[in-house]
């Protein structure tokens, strides 16, 4: 091998020229390497020659390409449209500004949503009435509940209370109470009474006996003095307690006997008809105590 330090540009060109002719060179190792690199023309066995476009006689089937872009665009547009519509309806329902149909639809949608939410919440909470009753009488955990008037066995009105074992809401019955039943309690202390005290009274007034209830002996308040004195007692029809509360404030418990002081002589008042004498509650009769007798 010659000295490669003296390898010139002309020698390199000569070496490449000798690769084609196959002539020996002084740089034999390099020449054989380049010759190997240049003259190996082995085709791989799997090589397939290309075909000119003119040689293609059969149409090439086009492979179907599934594109998800249109579907994605449709889904996105539907979602965006729905969001815009819901946002506009909500804004119209809240602000009340906008075209009337949209505002109306927004209000109706809001009402519908509220009703649905309420129904769902009721269905989820279950017995909401019991929960509300318990919330009216909050009790400490572990403490037995106080006996309700219906459960009170020591009550004197056992015949009435035991027949009503079903729990009754407290607040509606108290509303039915005439103020006269609690009028002996000073104002301001009524709120301090426990619910059992007022409920006890409420049961007495719930099914009043005609002779015990003072209200039944009185006429409706709208007719004191206005009723004709000569009106027949037979025409009187006892009123239901629904109209009693308005007569309470004028009738004091101590004045009840005064109604008996002026009976009509023509009729014998039956217990049911005793209030007929009270249809004429003259001031003198109410003011005249029985002590005058």
């Amino acid at each position, binding site marked *: 091998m010659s000295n490669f330090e003296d390898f010139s*540009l002309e020698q*390199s060109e000569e070496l490449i020229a000798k690769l084609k002719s196959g002539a020996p060179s002084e740089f034999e*190792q*390099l020449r054989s*390497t*380049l010759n*190997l*690199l240049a003259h190996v023309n082995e085709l*791989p066995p799997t090589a397939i*020659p290309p075909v000119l476009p003119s040689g293609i006689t059969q149409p090439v089937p086009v492979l179907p390409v599934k594109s998800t872009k249109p579907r994605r665009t449709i889904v996105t547009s539907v979602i965006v449209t729905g969001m815009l519509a819901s946002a506009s309806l909500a804004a119209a329902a809240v602000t009340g500004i906008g075209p009337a149909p949209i505002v109306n639809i927004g209000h109706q949608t809001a009402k519908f949503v509220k009703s649905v939410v309420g129904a769902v919440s009721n269905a989820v909470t279950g017995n909401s009435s019991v929960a509300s009753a318990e919330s009216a009488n909050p009790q400490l955990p572990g403490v037995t509940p106080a006996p309700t008037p219906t459960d009170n066995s020591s009550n004197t009105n056992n015949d009435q209370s035991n027949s009503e074992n079903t729990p009754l809401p407290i607040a509606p019955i108290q509303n039915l109470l005439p103020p006269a039943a609690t009028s002996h309690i000073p104002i301001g202390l009524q709120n301090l009474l426990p619910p059992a005290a007022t409920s006890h009274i409420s049961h007495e007034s719930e099914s009043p006996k005609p002779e015990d209830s003072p209200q039944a002996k009185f006429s409706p308040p709208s007719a004191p003095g206005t009723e004709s004195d000569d009106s027949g007692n037979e025409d009187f029809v006892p009123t239901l307690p629904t109209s009693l509360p308005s007569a309470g404030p004028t009738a004091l418990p101590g004045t009840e006997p005064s109604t008996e002081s002026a009976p009509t002589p023509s009729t014998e008042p039956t217990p049911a008809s005793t209030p007929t004498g009270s249809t004429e509650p003259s001031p003198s009769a109410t003011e005249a105590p029985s002590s005058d007798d």
Partner: protein
Amino acid sequence: MPEKNRFSSEQSEKHADALVVALDFDQLVEEAVRGSDSAFTLLWRNFQPRMVRYLAMFTNEPEDLCSEVWIKIATSIKSFQGDSNAFKGWIYTIARNAATDLARKKQRSGISVELNESDWIGENSTMVEVMDLVKRLPQEYAEIIMLRVVADLDASEVAEIVGKTQGNVRVLTHRGLKQLNEMLVKGGEGR
């Protein structure tokens, strides 16, 4: 020779074999330009192994890239004008542009696929060593040596492909060969 386009496939094969024996590349190129499949196949058989080795300087999948190059050649060969030397320069220009495009795509995606060189070199271990030596050269030297030695192009044709002057191509060829010889000597001493 317009009648040759109406040759049957058998007559065309016989005519192509006769051209291969004569190695008349000018006539082969002319026939391929006119639409002869057999002439085009003969050109492919002659240039395919060299082109694969040349493209191996740019990618680890030279056969796939070479197939794309031949598709481009087949679709645009009708517009080619020139002799066999011009045809060699033309097809290697197409191959170099394809390799450049592939390198640009891989650089964007960051994909690097390793391929066993025996897939396209074969069982020739000496060839593997030689290709390994050439790949160790700088890209500029290796490409010009491959074009001048493997593609059998002169300095003017290589200068036209790579966009350099003939003198510059000669200088780069000289530097590449000198460096390759140094590696061969050092490798022989190491053994």
